[in-house]
Structures are given as C-alpha cells and as structure tokens.
C-alpha cells in the first residue's frame, strides 16, 4: 500500500491511498483502502490521514477517521496517530502505519509495525525514515 496527505497554501487538505491488497488474498477481497474513513479521510476542519497495514483490522476500528476524532478532542497529530494505532493493536491485534496532517501543516508519520517507508517535505526540508524511531532530514 502507498499513500499521501497534503496541505496546500490555501489550507486545503487531501489524501490519496492505493494498494494491491493482501498477499494471496481471495479473489474479490477488498480491504480498507477504498473504504472512506478507513484507507483515508480528509476534512479541512480537522486534517487528513492515509493508512496502511492489515486491512481487516483497519476496517474494524475505522482507523483514519478515528485519528481525526482524537484530533477533534485536542490531541496532536502524533498523539492522535499513536493512540489510534495502539487501539488497533490492543483491540484487534492489527499492525499498521499512518501519515497524518492538520490544516496548520503539523504532520506525523507513525507505525506499529517494525518498518514503514515514509517521507515528508515542508519549508524546503525533506524528512524521511524506515525503521521505528528513524527521522533523517536533508535540504530539498
């Protein structure tokens, strides 16, 4: 699965997510990605999220919209992402990852698996990582 979230100079947010799905899935199996609120969600009043991981688990907790609910309650993009991923892991034993932004341009790339390839660009700086805890930067 691949995905992206963005905030433009007018403060509009958007998300996009695309996937081949799960390895050796049954024919006709559809996961979280095309389900609004699960594979992605975007609302200028709250923020935008793109998710990746075990689709059947993501759908059970409606992961993308759950993160934005936490943000509506005042949590930061990072805390909201971590809270929702932790709930998915504890409630249904699912692993996953998210990229999240709010309309002010705060962003987070968080995951409960061991790895997620991610990158972010803001103020002419490129941020990126792969393993838990990695956060490298370079000038764009």
């Amino acid at each position, binding site marked *: 699965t691949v995905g992206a979230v963005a905030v433009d100079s007018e403060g509009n947010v958007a998300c996009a997510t695309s996937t081949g799905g799960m390895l050796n899935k049954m024919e006709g199996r559809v996961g979280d990605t*095309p389900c609004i609120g699960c594979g992605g969600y975007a609302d200028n009043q709250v923020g935008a999220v793109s998710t990746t991981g075990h689709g059947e688990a993501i759908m059970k907790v409606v992961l993308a919209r759950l993160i934005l609910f936490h943000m509506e309650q005042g949590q930061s993009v990072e805390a909201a992402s971590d809270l929702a991923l932790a709930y998915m892991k504890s409630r249904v034993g699912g692993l996953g990852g998210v990229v999240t932004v709010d309309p002010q341009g705060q962003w987070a790339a968080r995951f409960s698996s061991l790895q997620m390839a991610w990158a972010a660009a803001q103020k002419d700086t490129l941020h990126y990582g792969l393993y838990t805890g990695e956060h490298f930067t370079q000038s764009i």
Partner: protein
Amino acid sequence: MFPVVVVHGGAGHIPKERSENSTSGVRSATRAGYTILQRGGSSMDAVVEAVTQLENNPSFNAGCGSVLNIKGEVEMDAIVMDGKTLGSGAVSAVRNIANPIQLARLVMDKTGHACLTAEGANQFARSMGVPEVPLESLITDYSRMRWKKNLAPDANPVECQMGKMG
C-alpha cells in the same frame, strides 16, 4: 501556512535488500508532490502525483509491483478524498489499470458515486479513455516469488506481509 506533503510506502516487512529502493522511492514521490505545492498547486494534485509515482515504482505494493491474489492475478484498490468538499472517489478490485489512484479521482470528479468496483470500475475506465494494460505489466519477479512462497499450506501471508509488531 506552510504547504506540506507526507508520503508512505506501506507498513510491514521490508527486506533489507529492498529498503534502499523503498526509501528513495518515497523521497522522490514526496519531492514531486512538494514541487506541485510550491507552484501553487492543490493538495489533491500533490497527493495524486505522489501516489502515481509510487504506483509506477515496482518496489511498492500498488500499481506495478502489486501483490498477487490467490489465483496469481492483480486486483487493486484506491481512494482519494478532498478536505474542502468532503468529496471522495474510490475503486476496488480493479484490474489491468496502471494508476488506480487516477481512476479513483475520476470517480470523484465525474460520477455521483463514492466507489466503483471490479468490472464496473473497468467499464468506467474505458468510458473515460483510461487505457487498460496487460496483467503481466503489473507483475514483478518479486511479487510472483512471494505469491508462490505463500501458496504452501502452512504459509502465513499476513505475517509474511506485515512482519512482527514494532
């Protein structure tokens, strides 16, 4: 207001020999999305461009490089959502399409529906002039190897794909 674009290439198990391609792929896609924002483009244009680049990169499970279903075929899903209007478009179980994310955006822009699936999504693609591509062009040696490896009766495809907990 600082424009920002954040990209992921998928959570789960990434073998060491593929990690460099994964990291460089997401960095390149992020630059492409950021260039659109810097030129005053919309957040929707930025995310669709970034994801299109990753669909075209065989290192990622989307578009070319997608994992195979139990029959050894490729069925893909995609979604876009616009925070200004709450408009959304998605396709599911779509076949023989190089960039499902662009088809999802057409569903949002050209139909009154939220999602089109399977043959309906392919018919819509034809009506929009989106070219169909051969199945073989979406399959890589790596995806075929993982498909064969996980046909074994005792295989665990979810754990193979997701890896261990972080």
